[in-house]
């Protein structure tokens, strides 16, 4: 029982909520500024850095959120130590 409680406490609820909030904010910003983003990001040339940087930012924030999301739901990798040979 105590072990279960300790396990439950370890669940990264706060990091998940934080990353989730930032992730939602990023998506809201993306969807509410579509015209500006379409016009600027697709200009080509050096503007190519904009979509690439955006992809990295989203992958970092949203990737962190989705990772915590599954952990909080209790879906985790196998506990059995698997040796890859």
């Amino acid at each position, binding site marked *: 029982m105590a072990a279960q409680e300790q396990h439950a406490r370890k669940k990264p609820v706060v990091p998940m909520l934080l990353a989730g909030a930032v992730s939602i904010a990023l998506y809201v910003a993306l969807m509410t500024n579509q015209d500006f983003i379409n016009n600027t990001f697709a200009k080509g040339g050096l503007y190519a850095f904009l*979509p690439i940087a955006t992809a990295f930012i989203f992958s970092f924030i949203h990737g962190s959120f989705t990772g915590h999301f*599954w952990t909080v739901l209790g879906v985790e990798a*196998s506990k059995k130590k698997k040796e890859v040979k």
Partner: protein
Amino acid sequence: MHDVVAQVTSFIHLDVANVTYLFLVGFVGGLVSGFIGSGGAFVLTPGMMVLGVPGLMAVASNMCHKFPKALVGSLKRAKYGQVDVKLGIIIGISAEAGVLYGAHIQELIKKNFGNAGSNLYVSIAFVIILSVVGGFVLRDAWKTHRSGTTNDDEQVPKLARWVQSVHIPGTMMYFKSLNARISILFTIPLGFATGMLAATIAVGGFIGVPAMIYVLGAPSLMASATELVIAFVMGLGGSFKYAMSGLVDIRLAMIILGGSLFGIQLGAMGTTYVKPFMIKMVMGVIMVIVLFSRGLMVPVYLAQLGVIPSMSEMTVKVLKNVSFGIMAFALGVGAFIILKAIWQGRREEKLSRQESLAHSKA
């Protein structure tokens, strides 16, 4: 180039239905990619085109979601000790060259034979590669399953043993996934072929993963995880190239990424629950089903080129829809096998935990 870009650049209107559709397809694509290292793109690109996204923009946007997805997936699988970063980067660099050459070939074919010629080339490449490689991978997985040796360590195939035995001075490099030194001269054509296939049918992993397993001798789990590094290197370079021409619709890429990052985490975790031959099984099953999907389209393109008598519009429409349906089915089957494996693995682990708890109480 700017004229071409002006012709193909058009941003579709996004509504709730479109966003949900892209998110869900992204999730399933991510799930399969996290597990076998690639896949998903062959449904995502036509899936975007169904919404009215121009072909080149769909390819570019797909690529721009692929590299961040592969980054997250490879980091996750690195935690499980499955990634050989060095092998991934070495193959990834030659794959980049393959992508550029593959795109050039595509342009040449399109210029000389039009859209139908280009589509025919893509479909024939699909059919030949998927039947040869997919058939081989599936047969191997099936043989392992039937022989009852699924728990045994994977054996290094004969060809890989020979590759590992060749010593070419000045080109030898140690790779942890192979636990051997091999000449990087062997990795260059493999990477190049992976890139060419990625530029042609959007899924380089259908060559890359089997090549790492059967030619270099990497274990299935490591090969599929290392493919994510290759996809990252290839995808980053390819996305930048397309973005320089203004072809990336970042909205589409990020919505698909939204779903696929949920999927890739799950797919990556799934690899810790399964026996290695399951990687080959899922990959082989998807490849063989997709083979039928593309095979159906070959007569359509042959008719458009005038090689065989023309078909009615209705027949073409039916074949196109059935072909897309089979592709989506392939991805669905892959996702089902992975989810089932995770569910079974978790259930077995839970049962064994309960048993050991009861045992310790007793």
